[in-house]
């Protein structure tokens, strides 16, 4: 009796150990994990028990119609909003307890254009560089590299408001990853930009991904969804599909991501908006 009890306790213990090591393993390979993450506003369930994982270095597309809850979900991940229930970790840190550590490990580019228009290119770089705690010499080196990548060396003292929108977006993205974050969150980064600039923008995303930065991107453009390694599609606060674009197209017998999206979004009960 006693021995049996002892052995079961060992068993439980080892299971627990395995579970722990699995979590650690996950944390090492996963940039983001969520488990039944939920956000309620009163009776309204904006995000309903979503669970997904994003691998390190992956380009993860987070799709959904307006009002599907993707912005709310993203806000919980970047520490702007406290989840109502569920678990989530970003860059290995808990979204409830370690938001400060998360903030240091991520970059963010908001839906609205998010640089200061009345500051010059260089001043914007210096501002965000020092907000993210870059040392002076590193900042200088990074900013030179950034300017030469964007071919903005001659325009570095121009006010940002004088740049064309496409350039602003590229600059905003470059600044969002100036501190080499583990993950960068892009909230509809290419809104209102012409197709050529969008293509160039995606080249920059690929380059960042090649450097090991995980990309978490929301978008409305279904052609952009094709560029992602994997996409999730949210409908009415739930994740209805999650796979690589090719697998999704096969599963839904669709020619394009747009068709996949149409099939899923048609089921939505929530009003668009």
């Amino acid at each position, binding site marked *: 009796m006693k021995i049996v009890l002892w052995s079961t306790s060992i068993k439980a213990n080892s299971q627990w150990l395995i579970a722990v090591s699995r979590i650690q393993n996950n944390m090492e390979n996963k940039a983001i994990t969520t488990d039944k993450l939920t956000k309620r506003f009163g009776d309204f369930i904006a995000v309903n028990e979503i669970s997904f994982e994003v691998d390190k270095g992956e380009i993860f597309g987070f799709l959904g119609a307006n009002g599907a809850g993707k912005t709310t979900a993203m806000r919980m991940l970047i520490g702007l909003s406290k989840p109502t229930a569920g678990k989530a970790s970003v860059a290995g840190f808990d979204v409830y307890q370690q938001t400060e550590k998360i*903030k240091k490990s*991520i970059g*963010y580019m908001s839906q609205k254009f998010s*640089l200061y228009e009345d500051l010059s290119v260089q001043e914007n770089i210096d501002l965000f560089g020092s907000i993210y705690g870059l040392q002076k010499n590193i900042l200088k080196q990074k900013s030179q590299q950034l300017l030469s990548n964007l071919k903005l060396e001659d325009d570095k003292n121009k006010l940002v408001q004088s740049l064309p929108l496409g350039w602003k977006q590229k600059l905003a993205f470059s600044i969002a990853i100036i501190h080499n974050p583990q993950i960068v969150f892009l909230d509809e980064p290419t809104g209102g930009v012409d197709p050529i600039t969008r293509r160039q923008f995606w080249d920059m995303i690929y380059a960042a991904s090649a450097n090991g930065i995980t990309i978490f991107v929301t978008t409305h453009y279904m052609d952009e969804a094709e560029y992602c390694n994997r996409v999730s599609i949210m409908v009415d606060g739930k994740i209805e599909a999650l796979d690589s674009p090719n697998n999704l197209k096969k599963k839904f017998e669709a020619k394009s991501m747009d068709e996949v999206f149409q099939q899923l979004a048609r089921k939505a009960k929530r009003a668009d908006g």
Partner: protein
Amino acid sequence: MAKSYQLKMKQFKEFVRKEFYHILRDRRSLLLLLAMPIVLMIIFGFAISNEIKNNSLAVYDMAKDQASQKIIEAFKASKYFNISYNIYSEDEIEKMFRQNKAALVIVIPSQFNSNLIATNKAAIQIIADASDPNTATSLINYATSIITEYQSSLNQQANIPYQIQTETRMLYNPELKSAYTFVPGVMGLILMLISAMMTSVAIVREKELGTMEVLLVSPLNPVLIVIAKAIPYFLIGVINVLTIIALSVFAMGLPVEGNFFLLLAESMLFIISCLSLGLLISTMAQSQQVALLISLLVLMLPTMLLSGFIFPVENMPKVLQWISNIVPATWYILMIKAIMLKGLGFASVWKENLVLIGMTIFFLAVSIKRFNIRLD
């Protein structure tokens, strides 16, 4: 530890620098902020003056004797009146008012001097246009004081014993200059406008532009964001206080009776409470227009109407007096009047100090609470 502190300082310095760029590059707004006190001082000091100078006066002198001439001389010498017309019949009196030729008519009856000498009593009629009662009252007061003065000069010559004279002294403001009442009021109004309105608009602008979200996602401490935003407006507020004091001392001849540094310190306290009020407004408003509107309705109107700036608090109905007590500017204006005009020290304004500090803490506490709710 020291290193992280250094990094924090650098973060903060860079952020404050950015706030200065915002303000310095918006030349028009900057000019407005710095010129506003000057413009308001000019408007209140010269245009909306309680003193009414150079009024046209018509004289109907039926006596034409020594005494009547003396009185007319006295009116001529006064800065309040210009003798524009001499009239010769009663019918003309009304004509003067109807055609707006005179604001005041004095009628000196015949036999004025002989009556005065024989019976020690003589009457003068002063007629004012009371369609504007405030002006009429002031003009009659001016005229009466000129005549009383003449009368007392006669009495001195006559050397009558047991003469009882009433002597009125206007304490702290002997010449009843309106600058004494409006300078503290303008200071309160300007600081309220610039500190509270401009900070609330500046913070809400970042919300509107979406940059606030980026800052909140960054490792920057939200409290630092707010402090950095407040610093330039604090400085502009101090510059405004100095401008107003300089204008009132050098251009309006209104001395600072009390301690200048106490005056400055109290103004800084008031600026800080206005800044915290601005912060509170920014947590309620989602757009710059809304912030501006709340500032105007909640701050500017009560500051102008209920703080004792234009209307004396004592004359208000009880309900308005209560409201006046929760207007921060009321307490600031009380302090400034005490220090600037009466020359009183800290001992007599500590109560107002406590009230302002209490209000500031309240505004800050509520804003921090609302700020956190907003993040949820």
